[in-house]
């Protein structure tokens, strides 16, 4: 972390960052995914919260995600400065001091956990606290720089929000919550490894042990296919539970088919072919993976929305 000292001498005086710089620390794009999946987890649950409680629950789950994002930026400031994708973040760009990011992250962590616990139940608050700890300490401070399995285990942090939403409504962890967790957990590795295949130089320069760096690109392609095969049955299984129905089953089957074809095409290619067309297949698989997650959870939400008219669900 010695590189951080360089940022402390950057041109921004203490406390002179703009409001938007602090918002950037919370990783708003990640927060938007957290808001969506937590909202789905909360709305598909069989117990319905008062709208004010539901709004507060989603807000504090998102705030907790933002807090862990700020802690991540504080710890990773040195490697963020090296990677092209992250070097304009507030700390490496010198707009926010590392200590400010740490303070903001810790304060928002405390506020979000306590408020979620008070607004809904203690289990939900405890799960949010565990998620922040898992992302900031286990993933960011531990796994990310030590093992090429960083994405696999670290993906759990991003998988918790729908489970927390479900627990906020019901007060307990059900099978449906576990399946929603598993969808994101197993989806994360092929999603990020596809990204790593076409932004290889960034991770190499930063010294982050991505699978592409430690085990090579052939192994990474094999892993993308293996995890895609593992992922396929999970949304189908979820579609057969109380949160699913014919619509979500059809969506899961179609999405799985497209996802598996994409993973198979990545598996079949070598680097010569990929470089020849500018990693077109990998980029298209990465883009579709985002759509895959959005539509999978969107289908569960649609089932819940159609239920009052007797259309959704089994």
């Amino acid at each position, binding site marked *: 972390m010695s590189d951080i000292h360089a940022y402390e001498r950057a041109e921004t005086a203490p406390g002179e960052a703009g*409001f938007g710089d602090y918002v950037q620390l919370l990783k708003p794009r990640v927060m938007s995914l957290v808001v969506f999946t937590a909202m789905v987890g909360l709305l598909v649950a069989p117990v319905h919260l008062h709208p*004010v409680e539901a709004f507060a629950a989603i807000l504090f789950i998102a705030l907790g995600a933002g807090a862990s994002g700020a802690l991540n930026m504080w710890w990773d400031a040195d490697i963020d400065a090296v990677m092209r994708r992250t070097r304009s973040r507030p700390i490496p760009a010198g707009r926010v001091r590392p200590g400010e990011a740490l303070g903001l992250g810790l304060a928002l962590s405390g506020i979000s956990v306590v408020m979620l616990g008070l607004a809904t139940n203690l289990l939900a608050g405890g799960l949010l606290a565990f998620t922040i700890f898992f992302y900031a300490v286990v993933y960011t401070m531990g796994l990310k720089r030590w093992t090429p399995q960083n994405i696999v285990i670290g993906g759990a942090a991003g998988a918790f929000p729908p489970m927390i939403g479900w627990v906020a409504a019901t007060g307990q962890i059900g099978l449906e919550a576990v399946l929603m967790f598993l969808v994101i957990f197993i989806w994360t590795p092929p999603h990020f490894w596809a990204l790593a295949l076409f932004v290889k130089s960034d991770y190499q320069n930063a010294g982050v042990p991505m699978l592409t760096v430690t085990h090579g690109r052939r192994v990474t392609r094999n892993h993308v296919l293996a995890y895609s095969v593992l992922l396929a049955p999970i949304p189908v299984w979820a579609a057969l539970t109380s949160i699913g129905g014919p619509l979500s089953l059809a969506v899961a089957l179609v999405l799985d088919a497209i996802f598996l074809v994409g993973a198979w095409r990545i598996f079949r290619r070598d680097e010569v072919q990929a470089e020849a067309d500018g990693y077109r297949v990998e980029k298209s698989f990465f883009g579709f993976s985002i759509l895959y997650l959005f539509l999978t959870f969107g289908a569960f939400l649609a089932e819940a929305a159609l239920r009052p008219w007797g259309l959704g669900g089994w």
Partner: protein
Amino acid sequence: MALQPTHELHGRRFGRNLGVGLLLAGFVALVFALTVVKVQQGDRGHADDFKGGAVTPIDTASMP
């Protein structure tokens, strides 16, 4: 160097203070709304303690 009232720094500070102020106001409003909802629903966390004789009255007559 003296700062002019229209300096960019003032605009940035104003934006930051306005943002923090609005966030705090929103937080207060949310806590108030949550309080109203919780009170209307009753304290579900402890309401059952006082139903069906869960709380046994103390027999003060038998106490020394």
